[in-house]
């Protein structure tokens, strides 16, 4: 039994899943009969699994309700927005969504209106498309894997800011934020990083949090806040930009 399962959790899971051999199952059941501590541990494990499953069922129900109640338009918007970054693909799709007009005259008058608005709209469209691409480039080129290893160089000096020396709780929050960024859940990441960034007890690691926060805002296409963070950090550094934020600052300036 010991050889096959590294610990009781795996053994219990296999038992509950009915994947134990007859011999191992019989042996475990025998032990559960006379070993009170093991029996208690098993009951607690079952309670944990059942509670977890019940909690997940609630989330599951929440999803079902949301899927049933979301409007067609909003649902389509989510699919289109996330589907692909391929600009041509999106353009083709928007063309296919155009409603054809029936007469030549209506075509001509509509075309005239479209041309006027397209001229105005193009300015905004190009800007937002450029912003989108630039943000994506900056964010994609940033190695969030190394970010989890948690240190950045301080601009203009050789010292290094490391997350390794902070409290476990802060470290966990930080790692969770990085996880959210990597998994495109930037809003949750921003929430955590804003808290860490504005925490007066974390002055030593403020630049590190600021860097990740600015990237998270950029990834979230929130240029205004990304720029705000960079400005605040620069103010802390007497107008100098830390090394870790230079690339981002340059990209944002280009917008």
């Amino acid at each position, binding site marked *: 039994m010991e050889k096959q399962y*590294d610990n009781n*959790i795996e053994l219990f899971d296999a038992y509950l*899943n009915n994947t134990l051999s007859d011999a191992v199952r019989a042996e475990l059941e025998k032990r559960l009969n006379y070993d009170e501590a093991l029996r208690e541990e098993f009951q607690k494990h079952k*309670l944990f699994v*059942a509670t977890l*499953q019940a909690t997940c069922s609630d989330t599951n129900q*929440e999803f079902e309700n*949301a*899927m049933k109640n979301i409007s067609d338009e909003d649902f389509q918007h989510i*699919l289109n927005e996330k589907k692909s970054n391929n600009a041509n693909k999106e353009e083709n799709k928007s063309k296919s969504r155009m409603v054809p007009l029936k007469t030549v005259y209506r075509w001509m008058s509509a075309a005239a209106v479209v041309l006027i608005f397209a001229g105005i709209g193009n300015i905004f469209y190009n800007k937002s498309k450029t912003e989108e691409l630039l943000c994506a480039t900056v964010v994609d080129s940033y190695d969030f894997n190394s970010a989890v290893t948690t240190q950045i160089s301080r601009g203009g000096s050789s010292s290094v800011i490391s997350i390794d020396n902070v409290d476990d709780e802060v470290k966990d929050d930080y790692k969770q934020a990085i996880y959210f960024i990597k998994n495109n859940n930037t809003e949750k990441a921003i929430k955590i990083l804003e808290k860490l960034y504005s925490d007066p007890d974390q002055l030593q690691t403020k630049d590190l949090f600021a860097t990740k926060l600015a990237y998270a805002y950029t990834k979230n296409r929130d240029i205004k806040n990304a720029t705000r963070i960079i400005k605040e950090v620069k103010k802390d550094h007497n107008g100098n930009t830390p090394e870790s934020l230079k690339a981002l600052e340059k990209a944002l300036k280009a917008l």
Partner: protein
Amino acid sequence: MEEYNQIVNDWYVKLMNLFINYIHKRLPVLRIEDIEDVYSETFIAVRQNMLNNKVASGTNWKAYIFQIGYNMAINKMKQASKMVQAADRPSNDDIDADEKFQTQLSLQDLMDDCDDKATMEQRVEVLQREMGYLPEPCETILKDFYFGGFSMAEIMHEIHYNSVDSVKSMKNRCMNRFKDRIKVAFKMLNLID
């Protein structure tokens, strides 16, 4: 309304990479772009089935999305008339040999079996509250494994780990850390000695 958008959006984003890996592993001839298309088509189909009451309420939606998606991916592959060499594909046995947890336990039964129901209810309440604070990747690992019915290999792709063993050991660490927290909470509330 805004809340519905957020929930659907969260699920859509959360499952995307896992779905792509899941299908790619089973049907490697499909291009990633095709799988992305299948993914959004799957969401449309799942929603349609929900609206038409074709699926029982309370279905495990994550598992359902993957099942529907897999069927749609196979259809897409057939439509594209791509010849698939059976030998190139991992067999279902290879994929499914990995450990999965598929048992559904009834919380109500466990509570009913307990002599001290009040204490048991309090314990469940504490457990549920603490689960809300599960840090990542613990939340993903534990929920995917015990509720989603995903294998360790599938979870490994989702959380970007390099090996199944490291996911397993992380799962054990998560469980042990969680147990410690629960123990402290139970003690503070005098639910255990």
